[in-house]
């Protein structure tokens, strides 16, 4: 059964310097509040894992939390570049950032392998591209029936996965709906997990298209209303597309970035949402 705690307690208990940490959420349900708590608690040398790094990883990278990034698409969707990500890769600021790069199909299958307890997954991918030459977690495997050669990707087994969901009940059963991304697989692939939720309720009223993560498969649940902002939680909030657009100018310059982080994250107590 998942333990129900506060988000700062959960980050303190679950995330250590040097850990491999996945914060997932495919545009929808991105766990911004938990990411901000990791920044506030000053974690260092993390290997950050995420299909679409998005603004939350731009912030964590810019604040020096990460030594390494495992990802498949690092941009501000519909807007442009992630400037802090680019500054780290192109100029090593604030610290150099190693990268391990995949396609979406490869990353999704790496989580599936982790969630299903297999050391690798097989897919039709990467053939003819320059990615395998730079990424050691892409190799090849031969079908024992047809002799066909297919791509193999190594399982992802994060030390901790953090996701945001709409609701949990008091036994820690988690409910999410709308765009589901790879969250279920990311939680099940991890050794430990934290789910922040919009609300903890007595009973989860089921909804079309919802997914339940049983409480026995989750380590901690923390109630953080608005904890996905500027991403969103379908049924609770709308995506703050305007903030995504504004991030482009906030983050383009190192000083303006640091000023914003100081005011909106470091000096926030993490209970009120002050990011917009």
């Amino acid at each position, binding site marked *: 059964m998942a333990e129900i705690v506060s988000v700062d307690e959960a980050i303190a208990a679950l995330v250590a310097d040097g850990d491999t940490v996945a914060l997932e959420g*495919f*545009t*929808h349900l991105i766990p911004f509040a938990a990411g901000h708590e990791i920044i506030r608690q000053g974690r260092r040398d993390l290997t950050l894992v995420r*299909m*679409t790094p998005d603004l939350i990883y731009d912030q964590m990278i810019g604040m020096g939390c990460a030594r390494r990034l495992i*990802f*498949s*698409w*690092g*941009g501000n*969707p*519909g807007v442009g*570049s*992630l400037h802090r*990500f*680019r500054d780290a*890769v*192109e100029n090593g600021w604030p610290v150099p950032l190693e990268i391990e*790069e*995949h*396609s*979406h*199909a490869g990353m999704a*299958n790496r989580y*599936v392998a982790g969630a299903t307890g297999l050391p690798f997954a097989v*897919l*039709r*991918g*990467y*053939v*003819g*591209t*320059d*990615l395998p030459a730079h990424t050691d977690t892409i190799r090849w495997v031969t079908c024992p029936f047809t002799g*066909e*050669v297919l791509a193999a990707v190594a399982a992802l087994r994060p030390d901790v996965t953090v996701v945001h969901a709409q609701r949990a009940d008091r036994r820690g059963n988690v409910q999410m709906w709308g*765009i*589901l*991304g*790879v969250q*279920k*697989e990311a939680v099940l692939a991890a050794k430990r997990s934290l789910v922040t939720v919009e609300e903890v309720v007595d009973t989860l009223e089921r909804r079309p298209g919802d997914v339940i993560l049983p409480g026995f498969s989750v380590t901690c649940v923390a109630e953080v209303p*608005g904890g*996905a*902002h*500027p*991403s*969103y*939680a*379908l049924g*609770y*909030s*709308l*995506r*703050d*597309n*305007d903030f995504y*657009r504004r991030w482009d100018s906030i983050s383009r310059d190192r000083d303006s970035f640091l000023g914003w982080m100081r005011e909106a994250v470091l000096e926030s107590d993490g209970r009120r*949402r002050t990011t*917009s």
Partner: protein
Amino acid sequence: MAVVERRPEPFEADEMMTVAAARQLRDGTVCFVGIGLPSTAANLARITHAPGIVLIYESGIIGARPATLPLSIGDGVLVEGADAVVSVPEVFNYWLQPGRIDVGFLTGAQVDRFGNLNTTVIGGDYRHPLVRLPGAGGAPEIAALCRQVVVLVRQTPRVFVNRVDFVTSVGYGSAAGDRGRLGLSGGGPKVVITDIGSLAPDPDTAELTLVSLHPGSTVEQARAATGWPLQVSPDLRVEEPPSDRELAVLRRLTATIGGVRTHGGE
């Protein structure tokens, strides 16, 4: 009744590009849509001539019918009215991988002579690039596995290069027949639509060749915007300008991208 003659509505190059892309989509096509111009083009087709088109977004939306255009691939507006919402592993493994998609849209920071695309790095080397681009996303497998690929990209010599700095997504490799040799099941880029016109692979060499010009564009303009000696098809045609209806729907759609400013649950 007197026939009233009207001057055609003026239009932007990007609008022509989007309309030309929409026209590639027949009714009933199953289409894998990326964000930006492809999403606009696919929804334009859905609202105008192809009501039975099936739009699939990599965020797991199957049969999307968004009321307004999303800013990101995961806006909530995509969920409403969709036939199904599935996980990201499912969209890639169950729907893209087995070849169920007719047309995939792609773009790139670089497109080369053989339709290969680069969205990874430009200049320097891979570990120390001059420009770090967002990366692969869904593109390599879309390029490999859709029956056809439509590339949408603005045409400049920096984009249209002889050879991409990094092959993120395979077009025709370095010669006709390479896709077969690599075992790629999809057909590859059927057409590259730009703000100047359209390019298609030469049937013999697989080299991208100019096959159409948008109204007002010239072969010289296309050549000047291309980083290799651009061949021109003997059947070069001129694209029909956008109809009033196409333009009206397109402008209504683009005005809604990302919706209005909203607060995230505060």
